């Protein structure tokens, strides 16, 4: 029998231990490097953006070029409007799709549907903008809030569908059996028992999907377009925070750069707040934990 290859001379032992320690330190270092960008981004957002955030930022329209001051009130309201429209499209369709996957679909068809959802998730966001441009902007001859909302809504569908499926599967089979045995119709079992049990998980999935599309800029570039004023008609272009940040960031004016930082701070604060709160909520004991 051969001796283990790991047991030769003392010098070699030491070298092996040193090497192992070096790798351990290296891996720790890499983990720090991976996390560093988040802290760097947050640090600069706070340093550059916090000073530009005041009451006016939340209540005023953007000022014309060259005038100091002004705010992003219209972009904040615009983003919320777009998200509401996206939710109207993405949430029901996504949840219905998730219900089909978890409650009805056969194994073969489910595999294909999941695959399709994953492929859709991988479609670059700029492509969604182009598609919706052809669907809604060209026929109606105008950029519009509707087009922006639809672009974001379509992006939400596969996200919501997959998370809904995941939480529905976690609802114990015995709940369904018990309800069916009482003579309740299957669709009512699903709506009243299964969905209700999994409600928290579904809401979590929807919120994470909303947080994800809230920061999207590319699909809005040629759908919602952006707008320096209030939007009074959803058939017209609408402002959005990410669009405003982009426009100000690539502009040549220092004051607009400050506003871009402030807008980014508000946007990231909103997104991280949703993500973190959802994570803490879903950490409680819950049979339908995502």
């Amino acid at each position, binding site marked *: 029998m051969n001796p283990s290859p*790991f047991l030769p001379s003392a010098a070699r032992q030491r070298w*092996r*231990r040193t090497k*192992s320690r*070096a*790798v*351990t330190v*290296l891996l720790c270092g*890499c983990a720090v*490097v*991976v996390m560093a*960008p988040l802290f760097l*981004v947050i640090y*600069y*957002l706070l340093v550059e953006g916090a000073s530009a955030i005041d009451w006016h930022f939340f209540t005023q329209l953007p000022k014309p070029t060259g005038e100091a001051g002004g705010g992003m009130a219209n972009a904040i309201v615009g983003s919320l409007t777009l998200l509401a429209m996206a939710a109207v499209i993405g949430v029901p*369709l996504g949840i*219905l799709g998730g*219900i*089909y996957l978890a409650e*009805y679909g056969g194994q073969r068809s489910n595999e*294909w*549907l999941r*695959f*399709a959802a994953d*492929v*859709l998730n*991988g*479609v*670059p*966001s*700029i492509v969604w903008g*182009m*598609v919706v441009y052809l669907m809604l902007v060209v026929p109606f001859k105008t950029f519009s809030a509707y087009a922006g909302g639809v672009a974001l809504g*379509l992006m939400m*569908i596969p996200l919501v*569908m997959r998370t809904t499926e995941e939480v529905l599967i976690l609802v114990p089979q015995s709940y369904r059996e018990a309800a069916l045995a*009482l*003579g*309740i*119709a*299957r*669709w009512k079992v699903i709506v009243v028992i299964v969905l209700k049990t999994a409600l928290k998980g579904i809401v979590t999935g929807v919120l994470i999907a909303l947080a994800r599309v809230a*920061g999207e*800029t*590319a699909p809005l*570039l*040629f759908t919602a*377009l952006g707008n320096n004023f209030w939007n009074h008609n959803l058939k017209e272009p609408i402002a959005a925070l990410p669009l405003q*940040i*982009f426009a100000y*960031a*690539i502009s040549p004016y220092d004051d607009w*750069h400050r506003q871009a930082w402030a807008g*980014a701070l508000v*946007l*990231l604060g909103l*997104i*991280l707040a949703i*993500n*973190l709160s959802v994570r803490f909520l879903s950490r409680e004991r819950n049979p339908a934990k995502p």
Partner: protein
Amino acid sequence: MTSAPAPSHLLSGGPSRVPDAAFKWLALAGAAVVVALIVLVGAELYAGARLAIAKFGPAFLVHSKWDPVTDEFGALPFIFGTFVSSLIALVIAVPLGVAAALYLTEIAPFWLRQPVVTVIEMLAAVPSVIFGLWGIFVLVPWLRDHLFVWLKHTLGFLPLFQGPLYGVSMLAGGIIIAIMILPIITSVSREILRSVPNLQREAAYGLGATRWEVIRIAVLSYASRGIFGAAILGLGRALGETMAVTMVIGNRPEISASLFAPGYTLASVIANEFAEATSDLYLNSLFELGLVLLALTVLINVLAQAMLKTVMSGASGKVQ
């Protein structure tokens, strides 16, 4: 003890099967939307690109001139830029991401794992446009004044690191993409590493292996295929990154050997020029670029899914 009857409002409607069937079809319709959307996306882009496809044919892909004034359009500089920036991103992000995943599964104390995972998930939640903003005002100036100067000084004999330093460049684009794909590479690698059976590790430790030897022999060799899948998945994300790249890559449709030179990617040329495309052929060419981008990302994603699926199912099969 008697069992309680079901609440009457749940039983109303009698034994009819019509609502049941209707609900099932409704759910199926919701699920079928994803398939319909894939067809829709492909068909719309093709419809939008018709003119350019008819005019240029396959030569579009290898033609390197992009000149809206003379109506000459070729995709090569953008395909080149997309691949080079994505490759730079992979070269940086794969080793770092795998190392971070190894740290999380093999080294980190248990109480620290969840917080680190949360930080990485938050990194994934940062919008592209915010990375772009940070890139323009923080990263690019730093790269131009420090890292690029150092690279030019030490590796300047390579054609990759020659030429003037503008800051905005292919390398800056690659670095910003790397930051953006790090979370997905880390989290998928972590899943793969977690699927490595503990028996593997215990066996290696039992033979007297050090931690590094355990990682190398028992963990990495076992997980290598899955990590390759994670890298491909990262590539799929990298190809489609738009806003941050647009803001730091310099947006010049040229093919240059130097990584310090500005570049242009498929996604960023669409973002920049779509709204101001003046002629039909110009707009159609941009749609064809979108079609190329879609084909690339779908292909890469399908490949990655297929790889990860075999690896994951194989691994979990072995655990049980």
